[in-house]
């Protein structure tokens, strides 16, 4: 892994930083972009981001560990995030999680051996009218059942 961010990303970061009167306020948007490029936010990324925003790296980690969407280790190509909140549970969401665990051969929080799928349980995704639903990377899928899950996973490269 190279020791620095791509020049395109650094330019984008500069632009984002200009949106705020204080550099450190850009932390969340910057972390999203860095995670997209680097796959995760390890100590190395923390130091780079801290340097760019004039922060002590510890403050970067404080924010990274506070939020569920920032990963300290890289995930599989497809992050399957199944909602475990009320409406999805009422409509069978838990059974779908069990099904996925069996189908993929992993437990919640784990990644398949081939590095393709990571399975997570998340809180309400804000798509309750399509319950039970899940988010794969940033794509929402709703009205799920086993057949639909098979189709969706089968369609992922």
């Amino acid at each position: 892994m190279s020791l620095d961010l791509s020049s395109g990303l650094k330019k984008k970061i500069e632009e984002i930083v200009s949106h705020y009167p204080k550099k450190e306020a850009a932390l969340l948007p910057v972390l999203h972009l860095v995670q997209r490029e680097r796959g995760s936010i390890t100590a190395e990324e923390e130091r780079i981001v801290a340097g760019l925003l004039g922060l002590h790296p510890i403050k970067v980690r404080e924010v990274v560990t506070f939020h569920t969407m920032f990963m300290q280790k890289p995930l599989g190509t497809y992050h399957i995030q199944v909602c475990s909140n009320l409406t999805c549970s009422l409509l069978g969401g838990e059974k779908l999680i069990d099904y996925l665990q069996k189908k993929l051969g992993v437990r919640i929080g784990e990644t398949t051996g081939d590095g393709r799928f990571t399975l997570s349980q998340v809180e309400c995704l804000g798509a309750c009218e399509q319950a039970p639903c899940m988010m794969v990377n940033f794509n929402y899928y709703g009205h799920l059942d086993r057949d639909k899950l098979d189709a969706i996973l089968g369609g992922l490269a």
Partner: protein
Amino acid sequence: MSPAAEKILTRNFGLESYFKIGVYRKHNGYRAQKKALLEMNPAQVLEEVKKAGLRGRGGAGFPAGLKWSFVPQNVDKPRYLCVNADEGEPGTFKDRYILAHNPHLLLEGIVITAFAVGIHAAYVYIRGEYEAMARRLEGAIAEAYESACLGKNIMASGFDLDVFVHRGAGAYICGEETALLESLEGKRGHPRVKPPFPASVGLFQCPTVINNVETLANIPSIIEHGAQWFLDQGLPRDGGTRMFGVSGAVVRPGIYELPVGTSLKKIIFDHAGGLKPGKTLKAVIPGGLSSPILRADEIDIQMDCDSLAGAGSMLGSAAIIVIDTESSIMDVLKTVAKFYAHESCGQCTPCRVGTTWIHKIIKRMAAGEGEAEDLDAIVRLAFNIKGKTLCPMGDAAAMPIISMVQKFRTELESSLRKM
């Protein structure tokens, strides 16, 4: 209220490419903004919104115009507007619809609001999971800048406003207004002690207005048609419509924009098609997960802030979760407790420890190792959280527990015995 009630926010949702500025403008978009910037002054705009009785649509129901009026105008600091698009309250998805289908309506509301309060920079704090909506909003913002509906000298009015999108990253607490501010400043989402309130000490210690997406989306129609028209759409002191989000065991889950004060029974059985075939109603959570639960015999109630508060619940985010008799309240309790334990920011003692303690007890009960005293215990602990925490999430965590145990005690006790 007229039988064929006006659709204020969701009108034209079905139109193709309504999220594009060209289509939006063709259907009278940005007319209110023009009127506000070119024909009114900020005080007039603020007065109109105050008279319209627009209550916050995020959950707290605080009157928007009143909140704006708390911002001091004579302080030598910039003022900020934060748009709360964090939409984390389980059961709620209305803002997602506005962001996806009608982002320009939101932007128009933002501009008029900023004009009324003297704000020149607005940040839309949008939850990280709504990446698709964030991109759509960014596209709309770019279009608005190009068409002089945003940026410098908007519509040649001399008014400047910049709008920036700021993504969250998965933390329900960041929907609480002061936690949102902390997160916007690049810190952990720890709510602040109030007072001081954001209107005087907010983003970067400057006077700040924080409003929900749906709240702001109502502003253009208030300006275009006037406060009285807005009140006529709803109730005398609580004007307009609400985007009721129905989910759960109903035939047609979805968004139903209806006048404030519409009957809950009507929303569930007329608009959402009633319970799915073969299912009977057991309970309804009327205003998002944090609102006290209603039994099936309690749903003959008007959906407005005051009526629900009077019945011991709350309108909250108007997110209606319909629970049928095949679902066990113990499972509902477990899901609720897990959620709050997971989302507690950890700053203050009662919430940090209490939510996890309650969750542990409920897990034990659901696994068959509980007793009736455990039900008393979780209510007692919930009362030790309620009203004692640094931010309202403590109450949000406590109220569902208390209401579920109080109203479904018999069922809960019998499910303990069954195991």
